[in-house]
């Protein structure tokens, strides 16, 4: 078992403190507002947007978890040994990002505790949400089992490999089901399409890679202090694969936009509004900028932060955009619904990011996330 030398851990400690502060602040404000006003602390509404920013957070982090499992599987399932030095970190992070997503969702649901019995006891087999819940729950168990295995040094036994493979398959099914939850909605053309699960998995891989690169950069003070294997990976295969993935995704986003603008289908008029917003162009600048940084293998931490920011906007535009053209609501509802998230909703975003980064930093401090098999 090779435990590689880490830097002084200054960045990890800083992230840990920031995550802790974010957790305390966001939980404090969110709980105060939710306990005093219930969900009227959100700017969601029956005549407006039903799934607001808390659902964006959930989709963002749940898919990041799927993406991290994909990154971890490069070494652990597909046998590319060069990727081992970040595998354990990715497995851990896939668990904490999923918890981060669930936390935001739980505070959004009307009855989160009722869900725990109502879904298993009454499972609606034709509901994508039901299957998404099942697959993510099964993944959580498999992911924990896999992490315990590798934490105890068992990287390569056949049981360990089988758990890893099963975890990968359930994560792909879960991310795909989340895509189907939107893609099956023929009544909302902005979402509808049989390739949405694929789009979700592709973009999941991008955010997963971004988190993997970012926390790896943060784990070591600089490239020079990285162990040789990590440095080799970070200077070659990882940014190259990441850039390729991102390049394809940028193309897909471009085509989605053009199709949305081109088509006259009722409900797609929202694309005009999306493209008219500066956020769309900020997303484009972040993703394209990151693509070139990755190609040149420069400023990887910055590139990954740009990808995380860009895809957060993308998830927002996707989840919220699909609801902006109102259903049959009459003339007192505008042509396009105006929605801005409330402070409480932003606090759930802060909460999810805090859980993810605090969870990672704790893992980095306590769980030897840089461990890799020796052979």
């Amino acid at each position, binding site marked *: 078992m090779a435990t590689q030398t880490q830097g002084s851990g200054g960045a990890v400690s800083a992230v840990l403190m920031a995550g802790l502060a974010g957790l305390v602040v966001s939980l404090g404000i969110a709980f105060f507002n939710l306990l005093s006003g219930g969900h009227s602390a959100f700017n969601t509404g029956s005549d407006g947007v039903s799934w607001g920013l808390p659902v964006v957070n959930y989709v963002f982090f749940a898919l990041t978890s799927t993406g991290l499992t994909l990154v971890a599987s490069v070494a652990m399932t597909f046998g590319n040994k060069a990727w081992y030095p970040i595998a354990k970190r990715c497995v851990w992070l896939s668990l904490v990002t999923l918890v981060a997503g669930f936390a935001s969702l739980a505070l959004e649901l009307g009855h*989160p505790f009722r869900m725990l019995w109502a*879904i298993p006891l009454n499972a609606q087999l034709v*509901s*994508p949400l039901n299957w998404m819940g099942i697959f993510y729950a099964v993944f959580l168990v498999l992911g924990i089992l896999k992490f315990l295995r590798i934490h105890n040094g068992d990287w390569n036994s056949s049981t360990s490999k089988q758990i890893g493979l099963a975890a990968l398959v359930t994560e792909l099914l879960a991310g795909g089901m989340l895509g189907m939850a939107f893609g099956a909605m023929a009544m909302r053309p902005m979402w509808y399409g049989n390739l949405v699960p694929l789009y979700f998995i592709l973009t999941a891989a991008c955010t997963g890679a971004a988190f993997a690169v970012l926390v790896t950069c943060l784990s070591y003070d600089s490239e020079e202090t990285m162990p040789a294997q990590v440095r080799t990976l970070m200077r070659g295969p990882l940014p190259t694969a990441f850039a390729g993935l991102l390049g394809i995704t940028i193309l897909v986003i471009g085509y989605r936009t053009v199709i949305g603008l081109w088509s006259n289908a009722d409900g797609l008029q929202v694309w005009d509004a999306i493209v008219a917003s500066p956020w769309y162009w900020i997303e484009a600048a972040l993703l394209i900028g990151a693509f070139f940084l990755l190609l040149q293998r420069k400023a990887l931490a910055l590139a990954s932060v740009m990808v995380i920011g860009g895809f957060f906007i993308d998830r927002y535009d996707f989840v919220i955009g699909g609801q902006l053209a109102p259903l*049959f609501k009459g*003339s007192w*509802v505008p*042509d396009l619904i105006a929605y801005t998230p409330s402070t409480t909703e932003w606090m759930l975003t802060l909460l999810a990011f805090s859980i993810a980064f605090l969870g990672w930093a704790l893992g980095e401090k306590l769980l030897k996330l840089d461990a890799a098999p020796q052979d």
Partner: protein
Amino acid sequence: MAKWGMVIDLEKCTGCQACSTACQMENNRLPGENYQDVLYYTEGRQPTPTLKWFPRPCMHCEEPSCMHVCPTKATYKTEDGVVLIDWDKCIGCKYCMIACPYGVRFYTDEKPLIEPNIKQVFKGDGDLSWNPPYKGPQQDPKHGVGIQPNGVVSKCNFCYHKISKAPKGTPDLDESNPELVEYVPACVRTCAPKARYFGDLDNPNSQVSRLISDKQGTRLLDHTGNKPQVYYVSGGGAASGAVPGTRSNKKA
């Protein structure tokens, strides 16, 4: 078993909102959250725009997408064709609100539409969202009837507390029949120009079935495949109402 359905005659409807008001009282609805609503929209441009209106309850679809997406089966369809919500099973995920093409569902934990917040003025007991000064005697959460609890979704239930008590085999629940009047949904019973009909769609001799075939009943957004059990009929004249073709209310 009956398959309950409704026919709304757009030629007779005056857009008076008596149905919405009756529904609000019958079902303890908060302002702006009427199960039954009349939507107003403008057609045509200046100088000859016309104001149109369109009464819209839940369609109680034959293929209800709201039910298919509900992860807990809280939304279900009864044997007599009514789509209901079991408030004890609903987790408030709001997926049904996303999936209903007709926008007829309500989550009540939201910013109030008008001030003062009625829910604060008449605070609900226990889990109930509010405590209306006048309330119907029935509270049946398993069928989504009564005062809406917090954290769940609600919608038109075709006044299930009334229609479910109607004598079996009744072809039409007609408010002009004194023996049936208590079983008639509130909106149908109250409609002054008698624009609403309620009956068994599976019975070819019911008045609703005959109206649909004689006057070529149409359904809202039929392309969604949800197959509403609410049909609209109209005389087709320039002055009469029509089923809007798109969901958006774009001013033409």
